[in-house]
């Protein structure tokens, strides 16, 4: 074949599909931000990024720790520590680091659950952890059930390279978007009707984008459901350390223990330090599975996505300082709550209701009253106005597969207090303008 006759060499179907999800409006708003990013001094009229669930409120605590503890930074004076660490590529992960991760997870749950370091499998971020579990628990063409609204990244993480599908479990605002048995049953029946094998249910607890912790009662129902259907349960607890009042968080691990570890082979927890510690760049994710075969398979698969030994070592050192971690967790929760209360107050001031939330780095905001029509299209039109006129990047509920139009996720922990104030002023101005237009 002569060059030029076909200059496009075929790539794989995975490569040419758009399941990477970057065409979703979730990411489109980021483009507006990238092209015109807000800066208090140099670009005060720019777009404020409120679509990124990052935790930037507690960095100073980490910096202070590192300043005072130089031993966390290096490998000691002798070369042997460095050599050993630089060469360490064992997919079991650094024993010390796994130990500290297990303890940290226990601390977050205030000792209400125990974690065995031998069951922790490390991955480069929760992104990798979720994909890895999907590869292990489901075959191409199978599906996972996920309650809506859910984190848009799942569309890529769980489906793209795995070929696994997602069937939504529709939740409604009538009960605060809590998962119900009926909704679970409906989704399962739907999958059956489509001749798709359901392999598991993925729950994010606390929820992204709702910002709410799942109640113990709902967790019990969920566990009963997956047991009855004989499927897996993945509990993504990435925001577990971001529940404003620690006693309001119930981990599936607690339920498993309360049931005497009966039938817990089907339960797997995903965690990460990206949100609670605000370290998304370090790529620290973990799978905790009660299933030995899953642990073994996950460990082998983690070869594709190990955590840098340099980072493991540094964090093992930091997390070993119990006094630091206790203080950090407590302070972080307080600051997040303060931010949350500030933004919800500000939104209320602008006539906007939020779903009552008790966790996470964001609010779930109801802008349905501002919609021209209660449809996805209406929501996206409103969103476009917010991005281009109010200059705020927030995430439309439809990108989270919410079944009701008009809900938006707005992040509050990824900016300074001052920027948040500016954002709230813009929201107020925007809603006032919209109301004035509506009244005309």
């Amino acid at each position: 074949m002569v060059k030029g006759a076909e200059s496009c060499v075929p790539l794989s179907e995975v490569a040419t599909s758009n399941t990477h999800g970057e065409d979703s409006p979730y990411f489109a708003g980021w483009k507006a931000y990238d092209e015109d990013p807000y800066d208090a001094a140099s670009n005060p009229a720019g777009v404020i990024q409120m679509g990124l669930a990052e935790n930037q409120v507690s960095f100073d605590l980490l910096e202070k720790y590192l300043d005072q503890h130089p031993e966390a930074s290096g490998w000691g004076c002798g070369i042997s520590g460095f050599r050993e660490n630089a060469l360490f590529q064992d997919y079991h992960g650094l024993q010390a680091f796994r130990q500290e991760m297990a303890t940290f997870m226990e601390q977050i749950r205030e000792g209400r659950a125990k974690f065995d370091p031998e069951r922790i499998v490390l991955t480069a971020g929760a992104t990798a952890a979720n994909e890895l579990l999907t590869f292990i628990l489901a075959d191409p063409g199978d599906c996972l059930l996920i309650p809506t609204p859910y984190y848009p990244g799942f569309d890529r993480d769980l489906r793209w390279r795995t070929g696994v599908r997602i069937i939504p479990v529709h939740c409604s605002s009538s009960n605060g978007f809590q998962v119900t048995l009926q909704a679970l049953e409906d989704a399962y029946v739907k999958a059956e009707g489509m001749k798709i094998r359901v392999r598991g249910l993925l729950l994010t607890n606390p929820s992204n984008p709702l910002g709410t912790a799942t109640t113990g009662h709902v967790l019990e129902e969920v566990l009963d459901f997956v047991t009855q259907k004989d499927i897996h349960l993945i509990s993504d607890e990435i925001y577990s350390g971001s529940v404003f009042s620690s006693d309001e968080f119930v981990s599936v691990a607690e339920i498993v223990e309360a049931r005497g570890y009966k039938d817990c082979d089907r339960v797997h927890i995903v965690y990460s330090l990206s949100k609670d510690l605000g370290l998304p760049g370090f790529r620290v994710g973990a799978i905790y599975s009660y299933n030995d075969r899953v642990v073994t398979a996950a460990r082998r698969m983690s070869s594709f996505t190990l955590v840098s030994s340099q980072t493991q070592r540094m964090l093992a050192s930091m997390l070993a300082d119990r006094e630091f971690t206790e203080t950090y967790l407590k302070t972080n929760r307080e600051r997040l709550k303060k931010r949350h209360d500030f933004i919800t107050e500000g939104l209320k001031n602008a006539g906007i209701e939020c779903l009552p939330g008790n966790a996470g780095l964001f609010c779930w905001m109801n802008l349905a009253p501002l919609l021209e029509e209660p449809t996805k299209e209406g929501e996206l039109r409103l969103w476009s106005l917010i991005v281009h006129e109010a200059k705020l990047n927030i995430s439309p509920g439809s990108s989270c597969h919410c079944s009701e139009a008009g809900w938006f996720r707005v992040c509050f922990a990824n900016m300074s207090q001052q920027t948040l104030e500016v954002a709230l002023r813009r929201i107020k101005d925007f809603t006032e303008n919209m109301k004035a237009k509506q009244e005309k």
Partner: protein
Amino acid sequence: MGLHVDDHSNYNVLSRIATSDGHGENSSYFDGWKAYDNDPFHPIDNPKGVIQMGLAENQLCLDLTHQWIKQNPQASICTGEGVSEFKDVANFQDYHGLPDFRKAIARFMGKARGGGAKFDPERIVMSGGATGAQENIAFCLANPGEAFLIPTPYYPGFDRDFRWRTGVQLLPIQCHSFNNFKITEPALVTAYQTAQRSNITVKGILVTNPSNPLGTTLDRETLRTLVSFANEKRIHLVCDEIFSGTVFDRPTYVSVSEIVEEEPYYDRDLIHIVYSLSKDLGVPGFRVGVIYSYNDAVVSCARKMSSFGLVSTQTQHLLASMLGDDDFTTKFLAESRRRLSRRHKVFTAGLHRVGIKCLESNAGLFCWMNLKHLLNEATVEAELELWRVIIKEVKLNMSPGSSFHCSEPGWFRVCFANMDDNTMETALKRIRTFVDRGNDTTAAQAKKKKKWSDGSLRLSLPRRIEELSIMTPRLISPHSPLVQAAT
């Protein structure tokens, strides 16, 4: 339920990928580890232990890297000098990677290849080590069931990296010792046609240059043959250049990137390079893999996929600084080559003295050793039997050629860069003793055909990995063979 239900409970059944042995740990490449794991050599604590020669690590220059780090505290975001960068670095999760990191990697890649080609930082895509890079590129280029051709012998890890979760096949291009395992055009054609006859779509070729396990570099003519063949068949060419910085002798290294630059006639959309710092810089723990593609669509896709295996920004930051230090990298690469060359010479000379020949090589962290003359018969079984004896009697763990899919029994890969000089000497002594004893035995039993299958020498090693993992549950490793978690 209306759906097909397995005999076992649904939840007990994991995916086909999870329950297959595509993870590759059943290969004999990994089988030797129990002996090492149970009885690891230590010059003082366990001088009679098994010496690990199956691990292609570069431990010769860690002192240089360590020294640089000590002298450059600002490169660490955790030291007093560097902590001001902590927040920005820890928060940065853009899959493009830190700009300085990409620039530094691109520059280092050029230098590691002797300056023959320049690399564009915009084409650098990160991955979880070369392991992650290989899988990522396979996902981008091929569909399940499609195949890549690969010259034998090849690194066993490819069976997992390229095939396990992707469903892509690897089909051999048979190479032979009579011409030093050169990749010939007839061999390429044969492999391609064999695939076609089986109705398998070939999507590309995967080569490693310098070669693992051969330790040889591809000459320009072979590279051109490969590129030309890829063009003719409209298939991809993936070159794993992970050992490019370990070329310690002539002939001068030629990267496929040079062919791309020299020959604009060829479609560069077909050319992709996999790289890593695990071998050249000796830092496998840092998980720094790179995909470098001349194809914009592949760069874009691979970059999105890299979300599943990004490099820790703490590590990116450190390496951006280190590899951005031109003075350091120049000195490092030169010294590393020098030490590898010396190690290689000492080792091969030691082997030569006892009549063991190695394939002539100019790169890598290992030798391709010819032990055909020690086999009872020219079979894989005989090779594995000899290998077991070497582990048990000689107390050396080295890798049998069959685990590399070598078409001829009797070859072994033995690594020499993962130990100090004294351990190297000990290893050579043991080999000398073993060969001398073998010669005595041969003389005494001149009429007996079987040399090594005396029952008393039978090794009681389990053959299969399932048994190994029952006995030592905490055994296995990442992509390189089993490394015990010492910490």
